[in-house]
């Protein structure tokens, strides 16, 4: 793969498209989430701004842009401002190897999933910095929770993906999609149900969403690591959260739900439909379940998910050896 001007232009266009996708996704998801929350709670949700409240998210983001950024006394200035930026920008990179459609991959790389897993760790770094730098005890507690949660759940997440990687024999995301068929029973969901379940649980924990939203546990730590953030700082954290959700949903769609393949007419729409179904699932459980406690959260990981994912990996390896 040679580096040419065309190649750079392609990457540049891809990055711009990804930024547009992330911002657009955040706006859509804020609306969907609030509307879904409203409907689940039997109230209309956003209603007044625009038809059916569709402009609510845009107006909210305008408000956040215009808000004063408040810096607490004794906060660490550099880190305080660096943290939201660090939360947002690495996610850009993570979208590069995702195959949205058959030919719609920003950067076709043989080890795409390695890239994603390697840079996914940046998110928690920003949480840690944000909580630490804001000189707030809630923030520090939230940051500490974020780190141990993220580190713990990365392991079963990787192990669950590894089983699929064994099966497909490749680290390239497009090839993983190609290894699956068009019909739902040909997807990895069917032959790797346990891995799918483990991945589903871990992705909720990795994105700090309820019922695993301990770093920002509202009723305990007010807002956890972003307690002191207002205006754009908060907006960037928010954006990063939704971008992370979108990313793990795309990875989920790619690995387990057949990616861009569908019963009729393969294409990027299938990826989007599947990813947004996963997103809806995340939203749905957020408004259904109470939050787990921190030691329970770690127990679920170390006592259940980790052994199960190891078992799954082991069985997969044996089966592959026997069959292949």
């Amino acid at each position, binding site marked *: 793969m040679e580096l040419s001007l065309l190649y750079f232009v392609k990457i540049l266009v891809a990055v711009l498209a990804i930024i547009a996708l992330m911002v657009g996704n955040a706006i859509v998801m804020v609306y969907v989430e609030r509307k879904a*929350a409203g409907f689940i*709670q039997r109230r209309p949700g956003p209603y007044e701004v625009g038809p059916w409240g569709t402009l609510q998210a845009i107006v909210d983001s305008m408000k956040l842009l215009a808000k004063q950024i408040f810096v607490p006394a*004794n906060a660490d200035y*550099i880190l305080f401002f660096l943290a939201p930026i660090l939360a947002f920008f690495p996610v850009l990179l993570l979208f590069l190897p995702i195959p949205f459609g058959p030919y719609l991959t920003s950067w076709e790389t043989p080890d795409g999933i390695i890239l994603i897993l390697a840079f996914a760790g940046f998110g928690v770094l920003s949480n840690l910095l944000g909580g630490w730098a804001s000189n707030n005890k*809630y923030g520090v*507690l939230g940051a500490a929770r974020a780190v141990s949660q993220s580190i713990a759940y990365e392991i079963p997440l990787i192990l669950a993906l590894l089983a699929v990687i064994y099966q497909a024999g490749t680290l390239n995301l497009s090839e993983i999609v190609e290894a699956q068929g068009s019909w739902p029973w040909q997807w990895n969901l069917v032959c790797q149900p346990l891995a799918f379940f483990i991945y589903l649980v871990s992705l909720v924990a990795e994105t700090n969403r309820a019922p695993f939203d301990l770093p920002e546990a509202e009723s*305990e730590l007010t807002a956890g690591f972003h307690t002191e953030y207002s205006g754009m700082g908060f907006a960037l954290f928010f954006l990063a959260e939704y971008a992370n959700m979108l990313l793990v949903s795309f990875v989920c769609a790619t690995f387990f739900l057949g990616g861009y393949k569908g019963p009729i007419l393969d294409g990027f729409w299938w990826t989007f439909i599947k990813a947004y179904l996963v997103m809806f699932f995340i939203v749905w459980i957020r408004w*259904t379940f*109470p*939050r787990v406690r921190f030691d329970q959260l770690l127990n679920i990981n170390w006592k259940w998910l980790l052994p199960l994912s190891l078992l799954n990996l082991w069985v997969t390896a044996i089966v592959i050896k026997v069959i292949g």
Partner: protein
Amino acid sequence: MASSNFNFINPFTFLNVQDSPGTYVGDFYTDNFEKGARAGNVILNLGPQHPSTHGVLRVLVELFGEYVLRSEPVLGYLHRMQEKMGEVKTPYQYLPNMGRVDYLNPIAWNWAFAGAVERLAGLEVPEKAEWLRVVSAELNRISSHLLWWGAFVMDLGGVTPILYAFEEREKINDILQIVTGSRLTYNYFRFGGVGQDADGRFVDLIKDFVPYMRERLKMYKALVTENIIFRRRLEGIGPMGEDICRRYGATGPIMRAAGVMCDTRRLYPYGIYDRFDYDIPTGPTDDCMGRYLVRLEEIKESLRILEQAVRDIPGGPHIVAKAPKPAYKLPAGESYFTVEGARGQVACHIISDGGKTPYRIKLRAPGFSNLSLFAEAAKGTLLADAIAILGSLDLVIPEVDR
């Protein structure tokens, strides 16, 4: 410190501050609390503005990691000196204050004060008024428990159930509005009766409400009570046995969850409670789950009382013929009247010297005693558990602070 210029600081300042007490200038209570703290432990102010302290309670906690070593509630952020107000107003004028002491369970407070005055003055209450009192008190108990249920689940991170609880609460508000005219701070009782008689719609709505509520309780059970996350969060958390309850004076569902059948309705029957057939639920366990289950059972028992009440409605006037006027003077003497509120024993102690206004009014708030137990129950638990214990005490801060 205004941060107009950039100040680059040592990132370890945070720890250093903790190592040398006195660097942070806390207020009176923080300093007082800090004296007992071990160096290196974090002292955290939960509140007065905190999502799960329900109003303006402030709890100082000393944390080691996430473990609560010590805690001390700091009250007084909503103190309104209700007892002093009672000494400057005539009893009749003081009655509306009772709705404001505990805004979630005003009927019990109405009853406590009206009962104490009636006891002192020797006023008889007509049968119809007693019926209306019982019905409104039970409806109010259900609505108070419903709001607690929602808020408690919200403390544990489940945001949705509180809005389901509000659906039922709105129905109860509709019913109580027929007789009281208001939806929150009811001022319904009068000395020697109640303010307004009920009409047919009142009874019809109650008849509709009882089966509806039973159906909803099934949904509550499936959605929350049997949820594994919820159960794991509550089972075995914050045990409060009979001994600790007695030492701290905790009453109501907390004491009943500890297995003591303490209920003023049974022990000192007031109103026409002795006519109805109902059970006093006592908890299977004395932990948060036990307290939760006791309260849900109490909703069922209140529904049973309502069901029996609408079957047999007495006639007659809703207030005595010569009801006390606003300038009514209490006879000299003392009286003590207790009522079973949603949170425990509500009591009113009146001393009168025969003057225009009462000589002294003491309001016994159940939440006050229940909260004093928190410091001991939360010792050594995780922060999240401490929040769950705080929620399970069912606090209403205006009532605690009075």
